[in-house]
Protein backbone atom coordinates (compact mmCIF):
# COMPACT_ATOMS: atom_id res chain seq x y z
CA UNK A 1 0.00 0.00 0.00
CA UNK A 2 1.00 3.59 -0.59
CA UNK A 3 1.09 6.56 1.74
CA UNK A 4 0.82 10.12 0.45
CA UNK A 5 2.35 12.85 2.62
CA UNK A 6 1.68 16.57 2.09
CA UNK A 7 4.64 18.86 2.69
CA UNK A 8 4.46 22.65 2.59
CA UNK A 9 7.30 25.10 2.14
CA UNK A 10 6.99 27.78 4.81
CA UNK A 11 9.08 30.46 6.51
CA UNK A 12 11.40 28.64 8.92
CA UNK A 13 9.97 28.47 12.42
CA UNK A 14 13.02 30.23 13.87
CA UNK A 15 12.61 33.34 11.72
CA UNK A 16 11.08 36.40 13.34
CA UNK A 17 8.93 37.63 10.47
CA UNK A 18 8.40 41.27 9.53
CA UNK A 19 5.27 42.81 8.08
CA UNK A 20 5.84 44.76 4.87
CA UNK A 21 5.62 48.52 5.27
CA UNK A 22 2.86 48.75 2.65
CA UNK A 23 0.83 46.15 4.58
CA UNK A 24 0.48 43.82 1.59
CA UNK A 25 2.05 40.85 3.33
CA UNK A 26 5.16 39.50 4.99
CA UNK A 27 8.73 40.36 4.00
CA UNK A 28 9.88 37.17 2.27
CA UNK A 29 12.99 38.36 0.42
CA UNK A 30 16.08 36.56 1.67
CA UNK A 31 14.13 34.74 4.37
CA UNK A 32 15.01 31.16 5.27
CA UNK A 33 12.34 28.71 4.14
CA UNK A 34 11.89 25.16 5.44
CA UNK A 35 9.48 22.29 5.48
CA UNK A 36 6.53 23.00 7.78
CA UNK A 37 7.58 21.33 11.08
CA UNK A 38 4.35 19.35 11.36
CA UNK A 39 5.00 17.95 7.88
CA UNK A 40 8.42 16.64 8.94
CA UNK A 41 6.54 14.73 11.62
CA UNK A 42 4.07 13.50 8.98
CA UNK A 43 6.91 12.29 6.73
CA UNK A 44 8.61 10.57 9.66
CA UNK A 45 5.41 8.72 10.56
CA UNK A 46 4.93 7.53 6.99
CA UNK A 47 8.52 6.28 6.90
CA UNK A 48 8.11 4.41 10.17
CA UNK A 49 5.01 2.69 8.84
CA UNK A 50 6.93 1.72 5.73
CA UNK A 51 9.90 0.51 7.74
CA UNK A 52 7.54 -1.61 9.83
CA UNK A 53 6.63 -3.38 6.58
CA UNK A 54 3.11 -2.02 6.46
CA UNK A 55 3.53 0.21 3.43
CA UNK A 56 5.41 -0.12 0.17
CA UNK A 57 5.81 3.43 -1.00
CA UNK A 58 5.81 6.95 0.45
CA UNK A 59 4.98 9.79 -1.92
CA UNK A 60 5.68 13.40 -0.88
CA UNK A 61 3.45 16.06 -2.44
CA UNK A 62 3.85 19.81 -2.33
CA UNK A 63 1.77 22.58 -3.83
CA UNK A 64 3.73 25.74 -4.37
CA UNK A 65 6.34 27.59 -6.41
CA UNK A 66 9.29 25.90 -8.16
CA UNK A 67 11.32 26.17 -4.95
CA UNK A 68 8.89 23.82 -3.22
CA UNK A 69 11.01 21.24 -4.97
CA UNK A 70 13.54 21.68 -2.18
CA UNK A 71 10.88 20.79 0.35
CA UNK A 72 10.11 17.61 -1.56
CA UNK A 73 13.86 16.87 -1.76
CA UNK A 74 14.01 17.13 2.01
CA UNK A 75 11.26 14.53 2.27
CA UNK A 76 13.07 12.32 -0.23
CA UNK A 77 16.31 12.71 1.73
CA UNK A 78 14.48 11.59 4.85
CA UNK A 79 13.43 8.47 2.96
CA UNK A 80 10.32 9.14 0.88
CA UNK A 81 10.37 7.27 -2.45
CA UNK A 82 9.21 9.90 -4.90
CA UNK A 83 7.68 13.33 -5.10
CA UNK A 84 4.96 15.26 -6.86
CA UNK A 85 5.27 19.00 -7.20
CA UNK A 86 2.09 20.82 -8.13
CA UNK A 87 3.35 24.13 -9.35
CA UNK A 88 1.31 27.14 -8.38
CA UNK A 89 2.35 30.75 -7.92
CA UNK A 90 0.98 32.68 -4.99
CA UNK A 91 -0.60 31.22 -1.89
CA UNK A 92 -3.04 28.40 -2.56
CA UNK A 93 -5.73 28.29 0.12
CA UNK A 94 -6.37 25.06 2.07
CA UNK A 95 -9.51 24.32 0.02
CA UNK A 96 -7.48 24.53 -3.20
CA UNK A 97 -4.70 22.36 -1.77
CA UNK A 98 -7.28 19.82 -0.56
CA UNK A 99 -8.84 19.63 -4.02
CA UNK A 100 -5.45 19.09 -5.63
CA UNK A 101 -4.59 16.40 -3.08
CA UNK A 102 -7.90 14.73 -3.84
CA UNK A 103 -6.86 14.54 -7.49
CA UNK A 104 -3.54 13.00 -6.49
CA UNK A 105 -5.25 10.50 -4.22
CA UNK A 106 -7.55 9.44 -7.02
CA UNK A 107 -4.58 8.89 -9.29
CA UNK A 108 -2.34 7.15 -6.74
CA UNK A 109 -4.92 5.27 -4.65
CA UNK A 110 -3.08 5.40 -1.29
CA UNK A 111 -4.67 3.89 1.82
CA UNK A 112 -3.39 6.66 4.04
CA UNK A 113 -2.72 10.37 3.58
CA UNK A 114 -0.72 12.07 6.32
CA UNK A 115 -0.56 15.86 6.62
CA UNK A 116 0.58 18.28 9.27
CA UNK A 117 -2.13 19.54 11.58
CA UNK A 118 -1.32 23.14 10.79
CA UNK A 119 0.90 25.18 8.50
CA UNK A 120 2.84 27.59 10.70
CA UNK A 121 2.55 30.46 8.23
CA UNK A 122 -1.22 30.81 7.73
CA UNK A 123 -2.09 28.87 10.93
CA UNK A 124 -5.23 27.58 9.17
CA UNK A 125 -5.49 24.00 10.44
CA UNK A 126 -7.90 22.98 7.66
CA UNK A 127 -6.36 21.06 4.78
CA UNK A 128 -6.44 17.50 6.16
CA UNK A 129 -10.02 17.79 7.34
CA UNK A 130 -11.10 19.27 4.00
CA UNK A 131 -9.36 16.53 2.08
CA UNK A 132 -11.06 13.86 4.19
CA UNK A 133 -14.47 15.39 3.53
CA UNK A 134 -13.86 15.74 -0.20
CA UNK A 135 -12.82 12.08 -0.38
CA UNK A 136 -15.59 10.90 1.92
CA UNK A 137 -12.90 9.42 4.20
CA UNK A 138 -12.61 9.46 7.99
CA UNK A 139 -9.98 11.59 9.68
CA UNK A 140 -7.71 11.36 12.69
CA UNK A 141 -6.49 14.86 13.35
CA UNK A 142 -3.86 16.08 15.86
CA UNK A 143 -2.44 12.57 16.11
CA UNK A 144 0.01 11.64 18.83
CA UNK A 145 -0.09 7.91 18.03
CA UNK A 146 -0.99 6.00 14.88
CA UNK A 147 -1.51 2.23 14.86
CA UNK A 148 -2.13 0.82 11.44
CA UNK A 149 -4.16 -2.38 11.22
CA UNK A 150 -5.32 -4.36 8.20
CA UNK A 151 -8.54 -2.55 7.42
CA UNK A 152 -8.44 0.20 9.99
CA UNK A 153 -6.17 2.64 11.77
CA UNK A 154 -6.29 3.61 15.41
CA UNK A 155 -5.36 7.19 16.14
CA UNK A 156 -4.70 8.76 19.53
CA UNK A 157 -5.57 12.44 19.26
CA UNK A 158 -4.44 15.44 21.31
CA UNK A 159 -7.66 17.21 22.32
CA UNK A 160 -8.38 20.12 24.65
CA UNK A 161 -9.21 17.86 27.60
CA UNK A 162 -6.38 15.35 27.11
CA UNK A 163 -6.25 12.41 24.72
CA UNK A 164 -8.91 10.68 22.64
CA UNK A 165 -8.65 7.46 20.67
CA UNK A 166 -10.63 6.88 17.49
CA UNK A 167 -10.69 4.01 15.04
CA UNK A 168 -10.96 4.85 11.37
CA UNK A 169 -11.81 2.64 8.43
CA UNK A 170 -9.12 2.67 5.78
CA UNK A 171 -8.53 4.58 3.60
CA UNK A 172 -8.14 7.52 5.98
CA UNK A 173 -6.56 10.92 6.53
CA UNK A 174 -4.30 11.57 9.53
CA UNK A 175 -2.84 14.90 10.64
CA UNK A 176 0.21 15.02 12.88
CA UNK A 177 0.61 16.76 16.20
CA UNK A 178 3.92 17.56 17.89
CA UNK A 179 4.21 14.43 20.00
CA UNK A 180 3.62 11.88 17.23
CA UNK A 181 7.34 11.27 16.78
CA UNK A 182 10.71 12.98 16.52
CA UNK A 183 11.59 13.39 12.86
CA UNK A 184 14.98 12.08 11.74
CA UNK A 185 17.69 14.18 10.16
CA UNK A 186 18.59 13.22 6.63
CA UNK A 187 22.09 11.74 6.48
CA UNK A 188 24.53 13.00 3.87
CA UNK A 189 24.41 9.79 1.78
CA UNK A 190 20.63 9.95 1.84
CA UNK A 191 20.70 13.57 0.74
CA UNK A 192 22.92 12.52 -2.16
CA UNK A 193 20.75 9.59 -3.20
CA UNK A 194 17.62 11.71 -2.90
CA UNK A 195 18.85 13.73 -5.85
CA UNK A 196 18.17 10.75 -8.07
CA UNK A 197 14.68 10.11 -6.82
CA UNK A 198 11.96 11.22 -9.24
CA UNK A 199 9.80 14.31 -8.77
CA UNK A 200 6.85 14.57 -11.15
CA UNK A 201 5.64 18.03 -12.02
CA UNK A 202 1.98 18.87 -12.31
CA UNK A 203 -0.29 21.89 -12.46
CA UNK A 204 -3.57 22.50 -10.60
CA UNK A 205 -5.34 22.38 -13.97
CA UNK A 206 -4.23 18.74 -14.38
CA UNK A 207 -6.65 17.99 -11.55
CA UNK A 208 -9.26 20.45 -12.79
CA UNK A 209 -8.71 22.69 -9.79
CA UNK A 210 -9.18 26.43 -9.81
CA UNK A 211 -6.86 27.89 -7.18
CA UNK A 212 -8.23 31.44 -7.25
CA UNK A 213 -8.41 32.57 -3.63
CA UNK A 214 -11.80 32.90 -1.96
CA UNK A 215 -10.42 35.14 0.72
CA UNK A 216 -9.06 38.49 -0.35
CA UNK A 217 -6.31 39.75 1.91
CA UNK A 218 -7.15 43.43 2.34
CA UNK A 219 -4.12 44.07 4.52
CA UNK A 220 -1.55 42.50 6.78
CA UNK A 221 -0.66 44.56 9.80
CA UNK A 222 1.51 44.37 12.88
CA UNK A 223 -0.11 43.28 16.10
CA UNK A 224 -0.17 45.68 19.03
CA UNK A 225 3.26 45.59 20.65
CA UNK A 226 3.65 44.88 24.33
CA UNK A 227 5.94 47.13 26.27
CA UNK A 228 8.56 45.40 28.36
CA UNK A 229 7.82 46.23 31.98
CA UNK A 230 10.10 46.42 34.96
CA UNK A 231 12.38 44.00 36.77
CA UNK A 232 11.60 43.42 40.40
CA UNK A 233 14.33 42.72 42.93
CA UNK A 234 12.68 39.90 44.83
CA UNK A 235 9.51 37.95 45.52
CA UNK A 236 8.28 40.45 48.12
CA UNK A 237 8.43 43.29 45.60
CA UNK A 238 6.69 41.14 43.00
CA UNK A 239 3.81 40.32 45.33
CA UNK A 240 3.52 43.96 46.34
CA UNK A 241 3.33 45.08 42.69
CA UNK A 242 0.75 42.46 41.81
CA UNK A 243 -1.39 43.47 44.77
CA UNK A 244 -1.06 47.22 44.80
CA UNK A 245 -0.01 48.31 41.32
CA UNK A 246 -1.50 45.78 38.89
CA UNK A 247 -4.23 44.78 41.34
CA UNK A 248 -4.56 41.32 39.86
CA UNK A 249 -4.26 39.27 43.07
Amino acid at each position, binding site marked *: MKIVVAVKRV*VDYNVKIRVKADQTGIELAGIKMSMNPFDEIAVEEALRIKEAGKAKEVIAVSVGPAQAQETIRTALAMGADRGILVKAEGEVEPLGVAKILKGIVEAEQPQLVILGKQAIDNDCNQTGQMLAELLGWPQGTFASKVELGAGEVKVVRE*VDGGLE*TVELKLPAVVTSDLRLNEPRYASLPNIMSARKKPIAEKAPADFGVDTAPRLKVLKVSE*PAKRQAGVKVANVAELVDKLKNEAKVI
Partner: protein
Amino acid sequence: MAALVLAEHDNKSLKDATLVAVTAAKALGGDVDVLVAGSGCQAVADAASQIAGVRKVLLVDDAANEHPLAETLSAILVKLAGGYDAVLAPATTTGKNVMPRVAARLDVAQISDITAVISPDTFERPIYAGNAIATVQSSDAKKVITVRGTAFDKAAASGGSAAIEKVDGAGNPGLSKFIGQELSKSERPELTSAKIIVSGGRGMGSGENFKLIEAVADKLNAAVGASRAAVDAGFVPNDYQVGQTGKIVAPQLYIAVGISGAIQHLAGMKDSKVIVAINKDEEAPIFQVADYGLVADLFKALPELAEAL
Protein backbone atom coordinates in the same frame (compact mmCIF):
# COMPACT_ATOMS: atom_id res chain seq x y z
CA MET B 1 -28.87 37.23 7.80
CA ALA B 2 -28.75 34.36 10.29
CA ALA B 3 -25.87 32.51 11.88
CA LEU B 4 -25.62 29.07 13.46
CA VAL B 5 -23.16 28.51 16.31
CA LEU B 6 -21.95 25.01 17.20
CA ALA B 7 -22.04 24.66 20.98
CA GLU B 8 -19.01 23.28 22.82
CA HIS B 9 -20.04 21.01 25.68
CA ASP B 10 -19.50 17.67 27.37
CA ASN B 11 -23.17 16.60 27.36
CA LYS B 12 -23.50 18.02 30.87
CA SER B 13 -22.49 21.65 30.73
CA LEU B 14 -22.11 24.33 28.11
CA LYS B 15 -18.52 25.57 27.76
CA ASP B 16 -17.69 29.26 27.87
CA ALA B 17 -16.11 29.06 24.42
CA THR B 18 -19.67 28.87 23.08
CA LEU B 19 -20.50 32.25 24.63
CA VAL B 20 -17.51 33.78 22.87
CA ALA B 21 -18.57 32.35 19.53
CA VAL B 22 -22.10 33.70 20.08
CA THR B 23 -20.67 37.20 20.51
CA ALA B 24 -18.77 36.88 17.25
CA ALA B 25 -21.91 35.57 15.55
CA LYS B 26 -23.94 38.53 16.83
CA ALA B 27 -21.36 40.88 15.37
CA LEU B 28 -22.40 39.61 11.93
CA GLY B 29 -25.61 41.50 12.51
CA GLY B 30 -28.33 38.87 12.12
CA ASP B 31 -30.18 36.27 14.17
CA VAL B 32 -28.12 33.75 16.08
CA ASP B 33 -29.14 30.12 16.63
CA VAL B 34 -27.15 27.56 18.60
CA LEU B 35 -26.76 23.89 17.73
CA VAL B 36 -26.35 21.49 20.62
CA ALA B 37 -25.42 18.08 19.26
CA GLY B 38 -24.77 15.36 21.81
CA SER B 39 -26.31 12.54 23.73
CA GLY B 40 -28.29 13.06 26.91
CA CYS B 41 -27.52 16.74 26.58
CA GLN B 42 -30.85 18.37 27.41
CA ALA B 43 -29.20 20.36 30.22
CA VAL B 44 -26.80 21.86 27.69
CA ALA B 45 -29.68 22.88 25.43
CA ASP B 46 -31.42 24.43 28.43
CA ALA B 47 -28.29 26.43 29.22
CA ALA B 48 -27.91 27.50 25.60
CA SER B 49 -31.50 28.74 25.53
CA GLN B 50 -30.63 31.12 28.37
CA ILE B 51 -27.83 32.86 26.46
CA ALA B 52 -28.78 36.47 25.90
CA GLY B 53 -29.69 37.24 22.31
CA VAL B 54 -30.03 33.68 21.02
CA ARG B 55 -33.09 33.17 18.81
CA LYS B 56 -33.40 29.41 18.80
CA VAL B 57 -31.59 26.32 20.04
CA LEU B 58 -31.42 23.31 17.76
CA LEU B 59 -31.02 20.10 19.72
CA VAL B 60 -29.73 16.85 18.26
CA ASP B 61 -29.84 14.33 21.06
CA ASP B 62 -28.84 10.84 19.99
CA ALA B 63 -26.32 8.18 20.88
CA ALA B 64 -24.31 8.71 17.69
CA ASN B 65 -23.26 12.10 19.05
CA GLU B 66 -22.11 11.09 22.51
CA HIS B 67 -18.58 12.00 21.45
CA PRO B 68 -18.06 14.67 18.84
CA LEU B 69 -16.77 12.70 15.84
CA ALA B 70 -15.91 14.97 12.93
CA GLU B 71 -17.64 12.74 10.38
CA THR B 72 -20.90 12.68 12.32
CA LEU B 73 -20.99 16.27 13.50
CA SER B 74 -20.06 17.76 10.14
CA ALA B 75 -22.90 15.86 8.46
CA ILE B 76 -25.38 17.53 10.83
CA LEU B 77 -23.92 20.97 10.23
CA VAL B 78 -23.95 20.52 6.48
CA LYS B 79 -27.62 19.51 6.63
CA LEU B 80 -28.52 22.60 8.66
CA ALA B 81 -26.24 25.05 6.86
CA GLY B 82 -28.79 25.65 4.11
CA GLY B 83 -30.80 27.86 6.43
CA TYR B 84 -27.89 30.09 7.44
CA ASP B 85 -25.53 32.67 6.01
CA ALA B 86 -22.79 31.75 8.46
CA VAL B 87 -21.82 28.75 10.55
CA LEU B 88 -19.47 29.36 13.46
CA ALA B 89 -17.70 27.27 16.07
CA PRO B 90 -15.25 28.05 18.83
CA ALA B 91 -11.65 27.37 17.76
CA THR B 92 -11.39 24.44 20.17
CA THR B 93 -10.02 21.07 19.12
CA THR B 94 -13.63 20.06 18.36
CA GLY B 95 -14.32 23.15 16.25
CA LYS B 96 -11.02 22.82 14.41
CA ASN B 97 -11.70 19.17 13.73
CA VAL B 98 -15.21 19.57 12.37
CA MET B 99 -15.55 22.92 10.63
CA PRO B 100 -13.17 22.42 7.69
CA ARG B 101 -15.22 19.39 6.68
CA VAL B 102 -18.30 21.60 6.62
CA ALA B 103 -16.49 24.26 4.59
CA ALA B 104 -15.20 21.71 2.08
CA ARG B 105 -18.65 20.18 1.61
CA LEU B 106 -20.15 23.65 1.05
CA ASP B 107 -17.21 24.50 -1.21
CA VAL B 108 -16.21 27.59 0.75
CA ALA B 109 -12.97 28.75 2.32
CA GLN B 110 -12.98 28.48 6.10
CA ILE B 111 -11.94 31.56 8.02
CA SER B 112 -9.96 30.15 10.94
CA ASP B 113 -9.52 31.61 14.39
CA ILE B 114 -11.00 35.07 13.80
CA THR B 115 -10.15 37.79 16.32
CA ALA B 116 -12.41 40.54 14.99
CA VAL B 117 -15.46 41.02 12.80
CA ILE B 118 -14.98 44.12 10.65
CA SER B 119 -18.15 43.60 8.62
CA PRO B 120 -20.29 40.56 7.78
CA ASP B 121 -17.76 39.50 5.14
CA THR B 122 -14.51 40.90 6.53
CA PHE B 123 -12.54 39.54 9.44
CA GLU B 124 -9.22 39.80 11.24
CA ARG B 125 -7.22 36.70 11.96
CA PRO B 126 -3.70 36.21 13.28
CA ILE B 127 -1.12 34.52 11.06
CA TYR B 128 2.53 33.58 11.65
CA ALA B 129 1.95 32.76 15.33
CA GLY B 130 0.23 36.09 15.84
CA ASN B 131 3.18 38.10 14.56
CA ALA B 132 0.94 39.52 11.86
CA ILE B 133 -2.77 40.19 11.61
CA ALA B 134 -4.47 39.56 8.28
CA THR B 135 -7.67 41.36 7.35
CA VAL B 136 -9.51 39.07 4.97
CA GLN B 137 -12.66 39.52 2.95
CA SER B 138 -14.64 36.45 1.99
CA SER B 139 -16.24 36.17 -1.42
CA ASP B 140 -18.15 33.01 -0.49
CA ALA B 141 -21.91 33.21 -0.09
CA LYS B 142 -21.76 31.20 3.13
CA LYS B 143 -19.17 31.84 5.80
CA VAL B 144 -17.65 29.02 7.81
CA ILE B 145 -15.76 30.46 10.75
CA THR B 146 -13.90 29.41 13.87
CA VAL B 147 -13.60 31.96 16.66
CA ARG B 148 -10.61 32.56 18.90
CA GLY B 149 -11.69 32.15 22.52
CA THR B 150 -9.77 35.12 23.86
CA ALA B 151 -10.79 37.63 21.22
CA PHE B 152 -14.42 38.41 22.05
CA ASP B 153 -16.30 38.99 25.29
CA LYS B 154 -18.56 36.22 26.46
CA ALA B 155 -22.26 36.68 25.69
CA ALA B 156 -24.31 36.81 28.89
CA ALA B 157 -25.12 33.26 29.96
CA SER B 158 -28.54 34.29 31.20
CA GLY B 159 -31.34 36.62 30.18
CA GLY B 160 -32.36 34.79 27.03
CA SER B 161 -35.33 32.51 26.53
CA ALA B 162 -34.81 30.83 23.20
CA ALA B 163 -37.10 28.02 22.15
CA ILE B 164 -35.51 24.58 21.89
CA GLU B 165 -36.27 22.73 18.70
CA LYS B 166 -35.41 19.05 18.33
CA VAL B 167 -33.90 18.11 15.01
CA ASP B 168 -32.75 14.78 13.64
CA GLY B 169 -29.09 13.91 13.57
CA ALA B 170 -27.32 12.38 10.63
CA GLY B 171 -26.37 9.09 12.27
CA ASN B 172 -22.82 7.84 12.18
CA PRO B 173 -21.74 7.29 8.58
CA GLY B 174 -19.77 4.30 9.84
CA LEU B 175 -16.33 5.58 8.90
CA SER B 176 -15.05 6.26 12.39
CA LYS B 177 -15.66 5.15 15.91
CA PHE B 178 -14.84 6.56 19.31
CA ILE B 179 -12.70 4.10 21.27
CA GLY B 180 -11.79 5.90 24.46
CA GLN B 181 -10.37 8.94 26.12
CA GLU B 182 -7.92 9.89 28.79
CA LEU B 183 -8.95 13.22 30.14
CA SER B 184 -6.69 15.09 32.52
CA LYS B 185 -8.45 15.38 35.82
CA SER B 186 -8.00 18.53 37.77
CA GLU B 187 -9.76 20.42 40.50
CA ARG B 188 -8.32 23.60 39.11
CA PRO B 189 -10.02 26.03 36.74
CA GLU B 190 -9.73 25.29 33.03
CA LEU B 191 -6.80 26.87 31.27
CA THR B 192 -8.86 28.76 28.72
CA SER B 193 -11.22 30.30 31.26
CA ALA B 194 -8.95 30.79 34.29
CA LYS B 195 -8.34 34.32 35.58
CA ILE B 196 -4.83 33.39 36.64
CA ILE B 197 -2.45 30.90 35.05
CA VAL B 198 0.92 29.71 36.33
CA SER B 199 2.93 27.97 33.61
CA GLY B 200 6.13 25.99 33.81
CA GLY B 201 8.73 25.30 31.14
CA ARG B 202 11.77 23.17 30.59
CA GLY B 203 13.41 25.00 33.48
CA MET B 204 11.16 23.06 35.87
CA GLY B 205 13.40 20.07 35.26
CA SER B 206 10.82 17.36 36.02
CA GLY B 207 7.14 16.62 36.45
CA GLU B 208 7.74 16.19 40.16
CA ASN B 209 8.95 19.80 40.36
CA PHE B 210 5.61 21.02 38.99
CA LYS B 211 4.49 20.64 42.63
CA LEU B 212 6.20 23.99 43.16
CA ILE B 213 3.97 25.52 40.47
CA GLU B 214 0.90 23.83 41.92
CA ALA B 215 1.60 25.26 45.36
CA VAL B 216 1.51 28.76 43.89
CA ALA B 217 -1.52 27.94 41.73
CA ASP B 218 -3.40 26.67 44.79
CA LYS B 219 -2.92 29.97 46.58
CA LEU B 220 -4.20 31.93 43.57
CA ASN B 221 -6.95 29.54 42.45
CA ALA B 222 -5.03 29.44 39.19
CA ALA B 223 -4.85 27.00 36.29
CA VAL B 224 -1.54 25.34 35.48
CA GLY B 225 -0.07 25.60 31.99
CA ALA B 226 3.18 24.65 30.30
CA SER B 227 5.46 25.24 27.36
CA ARG B 228 5.86 22.69 24.60
CA ALA B 229 9.24 21.70 25.96
CA ALA B 230 7.70 20.78 29.32
CA VAL B 231 5.01 18.70 27.60
CA ASP B 232 7.45 17.01 25.22
CA ALA B 233 9.63 16.08 28.19
CA GLY B 234 6.61 14.42 29.78
CA PHE B 235 6.48 16.73 32.82
CA VAL B 236 2.77 17.41 32.25
CA PRO B 237 0.01 16.21 29.86
CA ASN B 238 -0.41 17.59 26.33
CA ASP B 239 -3.49 19.62 27.17
CA TYR B 240 -1.37 21.92 29.37
CA GLN B 241 0.44 23.34 26.34
CA VAL B 242 0.02 27.05 25.76
CA GLY B 243 1.06 28.48 22.42
CA GLN B 244 0.67 28.80 18.67
CA THR B 245 -0.22 25.15 18.33
CA GLY B 246 -1.59 24.59 21.82
CA LYS B 247 -4.08 26.64 23.77
CA ILE B 248 -4.52 30.37 23.37
CA VAL B 249 -5.06 32.06 26.72
CA ALA B 250 -5.51 35.64 27.93
CA PRO B 251 -5.97 35.62 31.70
CA GLN B 252 -5.74 38.61 34.03
CA LEU B 253 -2.41 37.29 35.24
CA TYR B 254 0.01 34.90 33.52
CA ILE B 255 3.06 33.76 35.44
CA ALA B 256 5.71 32.11 33.22
CA VAL B 257 8.27 30.12 35.17
CA GLY B 258 11.39 28.64 33.58
CA ILE B 259 10.03 29.48 30.12
CA SER B 260 12.36 31.24 27.67
CA GLY B 261 9.65 32.96 25.62
CA ALA B 262 9.90 31.42 22.12
CA ILE B 263 7.55 33.08 19.61
CA GLN B 264 5.44 29.93 19.54
CA HIS B 265 4.86 30.22 23.27
CA LEU B 266 4.27 33.98 23.21
CA ALA B 267 1.64 33.41 20.50
CA GLY B 268 -0.50 31.67 23.09
CA MET B 269 -0.26 34.11 26.00
CA LYS B 270 0.85 37.56 24.94
CA ASP B 271 -2.65 38.98 25.18
CA SER B 272 -2.73 38.29 28.92
CA LYS B 273 -3.47 41.43 30.92
CA VAL B 274 -0.45 41.17 33.21
CA ILE B 275 2.53 38.92 32.53
CA VAL B 276 5.09 37.89 35.13
CA ALA B 277 8.28 36.06 34.16
CA ILE B 278 10.53 34.18 36.54
CA ASN B 279 13.72 33.09 34.85
CA LYS B 280 17.34 32.83 35.90
CA ASP B 281 18.57 34.13 32.56
CA GLU B 282 18.13 37.90 32.45
CA GLU B 283 18.45 37.80 28.65
CA ALA B 284 15.49 35.45 28.20
CA PRO B 285 13.09 36.86 25.57
CA ILE B 286 10.14 36.33 27.90
CA PHE B 287 11.27 39.46 29.76
CA GLN B 288 10.53 41.53 26.64
CA VAL B 289 6.82 40.92 27.10
CA ALA B 290 6.70 40.67 30.90
CA ASP B 291 5.20 43.48 32.97
CA TYR B 292 7.13 42.21 35.96
CA GLY B 293 10.31 40.24 35.56
CA LEU B 294 12.09 38.43 38.35
CA VAL B 295 15.58 37.19 37.54
CA ALA B 296 15.91 34.32 39.96
CA ASP B 297 16.32 30.60 40.39
CA LEU B 298 12.81 29.21 40.28
CA PHE B 299 13.61 26.60 42.92
CA LYS B 300 14.13 29.42 45.36
CA ALA B 301 11.54 31.88 44.02
CA LEU B 302 8.53 29.54 43.77
CA PRO B 303 8.53 28.38 47.42
CA GLU B 304 9.00 32.00 48.50
CA LEU B 305 6.10 33.05 46.30
CA ALA B 306 3.80 30.32 47.62
CA GLU B 307 4.73 31.43 51.13
CA ALA B 308 4.15 35.14 50.45
CA LEU B 309 0.68 34.71 48.92
